[in-house]
């Protein structure tokens, strides 16, 4: 531990010596819940400011069309309408949004309101700000737009064909980026394989469907020349450059605030477009401007995941050893690169999945289509990649007549190999994966189900059992983006925290994150309580993010399962340094050698003479007020600021790098039954084993497991966007976009292992996204049910019709189109 005063950039250390393990791991009641369950949260829509005006959008009914003319005169003349803007008005006020893509995709021109052309259905074409939202929407209805519809491109593979309609003419192609990855001697393994198993899979389009949609209140204070933006963005600091450029304001004049956020799941990263528009309007009108997205707007036009289509070949030995993979993948990123094509690199965090696969080649493309722009929906990029690997493992098992659990056991990375380096340079930190698989199989009565499956099949019942292993690789190394654009000045993955003991001996904590229900106030308080050994109830964690007071870096935010590995590490460091300072002051005041000072139960005492002790709150009072008592030369106050920096490096010339800090592990075992006459699937049993390192709060870990399973079941069986060939989204409401209710989510059995990460001071690993394991497990189970009939699923979504078509042999599953 450094003895220097708090430094801005701390070097990485695995030192955990400040932990007392008195408060970590306890199921303490989440601090946030007390206000949230009573309806006392503060969400963006709860913010009411004097003279606030309201924004609404006219959105494109076409997926691809030229805007020939917009007539806003009737809308402008309506009473109560304050402002009507089109793309041309925006173009005059800001530069296009910066593009992170390499050339020529970088030539794409992206404004928050469509200029000259619309590129996806639901794209904002004009905006109205009015005295009320009702008036704003009435005025929206009075705007006339003359469109010239253009042929749309909705299929990612066809988008690359010559002659395909161009989403961005100025790019000259629909290709966003292409990267050819090759790690290890793939050709050798394919030459020496006993067999090659090949398949093509599609990971479908869905979203995260948070309870709260995107929202913003922008409040320009003309006197102070400060813009305050209340928003629900998951990572405001990531987008501050966009905001600063769009508004032409320096960071110290731009205050971005989040409070309670009603779920994000990756959907709330690219809502900066709304933030810019509301802020520009607020500056123009010198009034606060609120925008609250409707559910239809959210489903249609906010943020989808990128669809992915991969052909996967596996080089396999007869004994089931998987030697190498060769893949070709295409990501459908939609109409604009607002977050993507990050997904074409992020998958490499888990390049070879959970297995000792020796080599991997992936010919990777990301393309524009006339669909909603995509972002990092829960399980971002790694979930689809692990899907490809887990699906091919099932196919290999079937070809070899092996049990799916056995082939996984055979290929899993073993505990003796940890930390394990993958061919792409990833460093899997810790865990006993085969043991985890064994325990999950036992808890799920896997072998019992296999027996019952046979018996029931003889009675005409169709049962499927799926077993899948996965990881939530967590705490991303943003240098991964250099793999598609080496010029991007964005690397590493850091987070800040401030821990202050206030003069009354209480503790105030300020984070750099912007949580959306992950319980950061709880887990941060537990880490601080654990390090300082003060009461959990005496710790006060500021809700949300505020760029005028939070300790931030450009990575700050809540995404990529990063708070446990990175955010809590910053909290640990700040608390540990505070503890050191408290010990130093105590040593002086108690006349005790510094090494003998013990901080325990809210007091400091001298180990050699327990009579000599002092409550921390007395030390706090001295540190701020009675400062002549402090050791000579010591700086008063008890502020401790830390920024945690993992030892990340840039990818080498062969694109090898460790791209995440921790790798949690999970095993899901699912049993489904299929109605033979209707194809309707029903989950009979769900078991999940989770090893996310040291558990900070088991209530929160279990909640994340439950949520990830619910999302995965939703994606596999209920939630899927359907676009027609003209780019019309056919299900943009909750009537047809089927978010499951509690009735559809099965009972789940969750069991744990706890292998601390050696790479984080708390030993905790990130785990919130869940790695998409539930999607893979449900699909695996459905395919297992269909396999004896020769049925295979080509997609990450299985609806009853697809299943029935396979059962009937009437056609191949429509997912294999």
């Amino acid at each position, binding site marked *: 531990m450094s003895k220097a005063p708090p430094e801005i950039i701390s070097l990485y250390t695995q030192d955990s010596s400040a932990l007392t393990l008195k408060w970590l791991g306890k199921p303490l009641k989440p601090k946030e819940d007390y206000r949230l369950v009573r309806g006392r949260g503060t969400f963006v829509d709860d913010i009411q400011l004097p003279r606030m005006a309201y924004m609404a959008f006219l959105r494109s009914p076409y997926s691809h069309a030229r805007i020939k003319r917009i007539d806003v005169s009737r809308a402008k003349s309506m009473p109560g309408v304050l402002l009507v803007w089109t793309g041309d008005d925006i173009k005059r006020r800001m530069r296009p949004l910066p593009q992170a893509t390499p050339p020529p995709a970088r030539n794409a021109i992206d404004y928050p309101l469509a200029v000259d052309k619309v590129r996806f259905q639901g794209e904002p074409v004009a905006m109205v700000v009015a005295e009320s*939202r*009702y008036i704003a*929407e*009435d005025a929206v*209805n009075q705007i006339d737009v003359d469109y010239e519809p253009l042929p749309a491109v909705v299929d990612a593979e066809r988008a690359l064909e010559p002659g395909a309609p161009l989403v961005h003419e100025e790019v000259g192609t629909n290709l966003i980026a292409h990267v050819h990855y090759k790690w290890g001697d793939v050709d050798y393994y394919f030459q020496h394989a006993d067999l090659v198993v090949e398949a093509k899979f599609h990971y479908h389009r869905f979203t995260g469907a948070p309870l709260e949609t995107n929202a913003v209140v922008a409040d320009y204070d003309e006197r102070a020349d400060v813009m305050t933006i209340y928003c629900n963005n998951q990572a405001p600091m990531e987008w501050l450059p966009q905001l600063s450029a769009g508004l032409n304001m320096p960071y110290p004049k731009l205050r971005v605030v989040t409070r309670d956020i009603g779920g994000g799941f990756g959907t709330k990263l690219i809502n900066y477009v709304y933030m810019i528009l509301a802020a520009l309007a607020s500056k123009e009108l010198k009034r606060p401007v609120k925008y609250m997205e*409707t*559910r*239809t707007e959210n489903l249609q036009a906010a943020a989808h995941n990128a669809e992915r289509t991969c052909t996967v070949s596996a080089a396999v030995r007869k004994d089931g050893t998987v030697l190498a993979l060769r893949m070709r993948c295409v990501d459908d990123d939609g109409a604009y690169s607002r977050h993507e094509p990050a997904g074409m690199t992020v998958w490499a965090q888990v390049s070879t999945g959970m297995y000792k696969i020796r080599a991997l080649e992936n010919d990777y493309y990301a393309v524009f289509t006339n669909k909603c722009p995509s972002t990092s929906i829960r399980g971002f990029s790694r979930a689809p990649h692990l899907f490809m690997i887990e699906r091919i493992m099932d196919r290999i098992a079937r070809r070899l007549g092996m049990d799916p659990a056995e082939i996984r056991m055979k290929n899993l990375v073993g505990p003796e190999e940890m930390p394990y380096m993958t061919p792409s340079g990833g460093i899997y930190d810790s865990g006993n994966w085969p043991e985890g698989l064994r325990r999950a199989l036992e808890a799920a009565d896997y072998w019992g189900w296999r027996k019952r499956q046979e018996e029931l099949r003889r009675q005409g019942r169709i049962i499927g059992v799926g077993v899948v292993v996965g990881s939530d690789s967590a705490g991303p190394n943003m240098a991964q983006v250099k793999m598609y654009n080496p010029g991007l000045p964005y690397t590493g993955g850091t987070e800040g925290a401030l821990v202050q003991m206030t003069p009354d001996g209480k503790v105030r904590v300020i984070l750099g994150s912007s949580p959306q229900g992950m319980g950061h106030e709880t887990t941060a308080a537990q880490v601080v309580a654990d390090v300082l050994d003060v009461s959990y109830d005496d710790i006060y964690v500021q809700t949300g993010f505020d760029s005028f007071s939070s300790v931030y870096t450009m990575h700050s935010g809540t995404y990529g399962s990063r708070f446990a590995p990175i955010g809590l590490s910053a909290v640990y460091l700040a608390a540990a340094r505070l503890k050191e300072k408290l010990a130093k002051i105590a040593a002086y005041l108690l006349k005790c050698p510094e090494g003998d000072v013990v901080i325990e139960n809210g007091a400091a005492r001298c180990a050699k003479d327990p009579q000599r002790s002092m409550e921390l709150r007395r030390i706090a009072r001295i540190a701020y007020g009675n400062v002549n008592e402090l050791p000579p030369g010591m700086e008063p106050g008890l502020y401790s600021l830390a920024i945690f920096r993992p030892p990340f490096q840039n990818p080498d010339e062969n694109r090898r790098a460790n791209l995440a800090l921790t790798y949690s592990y999970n095993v899901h075992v699912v049993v489904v039954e299929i109605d033979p*006459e*209707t*194809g*309707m699937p029903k989950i009979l049993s769900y078991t999940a084993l989770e090893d996310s390192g040291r558990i900070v709060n088991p209530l929160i870990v279990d909640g994340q497991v439950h949520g990830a399973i619910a999302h995965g079941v939703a994606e596999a*069986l*209920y939630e899927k966007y*359907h676009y027609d060939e003209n780019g019309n989204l*056919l*299900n943009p*409401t909750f*009537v*047809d976009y*089927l978010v*499951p*209710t509690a*009735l*559809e989510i099965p009972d789940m059995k969750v069991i744990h292992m706890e292998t601390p990460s050696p790479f984080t001071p708390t030993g905790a690993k990130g785990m919130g996204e869940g790695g998409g394991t539930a999607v893979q497990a449900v699909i695996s189970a459905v395919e297992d049910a269909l396999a004896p009939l020769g049925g295979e699923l080509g997609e990450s979504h299985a*609806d*009853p*019709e697809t299943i*029935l078509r396979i059962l*009937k042999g*009437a056609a191949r599953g429509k997912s294999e189109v």
Partner: protein
Amino acid sequence: MRPAPFEYYAPTSLEEALRLLSEKEGAKLLAGGQSLLALMKLRLLTPTALIDLNRIRELRYIKEEDGWLLIGAMTIYDELEQSPLIRERYPALHEALYRLGDQQVRNRGTIGGSLAHADPSANLPPVMVALKAQMVAARAGGGRRVIQADDFFVDAFTTALEPDKEALVEVRLPPWPRGSGGAYMKLSKREIDFSIVEVAVQMTVGDDGGVKEARVVLGSVAPKPYRAVGAEEVLAGAKVDEGLAARAAEAGTRDLEPPSDVQASSWYRKEVSRVLVKRAILKAYARARGMEQ
């Protein structure tokens, strides 16, 4: 999600509501609002005025009269679902109510609102046709007429009610003789969804086990409730077993040409129609014979 401007009236008597309906051009009656308000918020419907029926107490009741069950149009689903009379005498209706929306919807939605809206996928219309229900329509000035359920549903979202004049005020369920039973089945991905296919079956079975009368009605497969007459013919006089039910289902669904939408293709609807009809026949038959609740 804000509706376009509209006038709002909250009459406290039926007569006043009917008078407003005839006077206000482009007005719509507001019952539980579970469909109408959603459509207005999406601005798919922009009525000039709403005439809210929720304060009209005289339209909310369940009562028996000469063996008939009379239901006021503004009676909410939840009240109907809780009714022991309906559960015992009209199990198909009870099941259709139990499987209708979620509790919030059942607390607001009304039988009259649903039937007058005539959504081709709604739970109640096929049940009404299967039960041979009668619809009572009223107009300002005291005029009333009775419309048979078979004639009430004209097309998707279209009923035999005269637009801007008539309101549905009462639903009358006829008594079914001893030896009767019914069943309602619905296939949907989520429990709260509109059905992909639904079927209501009502039948009377003689002491010898032969079917005396059967009505088999499908929903979600046509613009209005679809009488599976072919199935009814196979059932007539027959003793029902698995094989016969399958034959009836086959005959009853042979001519179906269901629509395709984002949830299911025409092919799938037709396939599962056959399955549901077969299962509902078996269940209704068992109930009619007192073999199963």
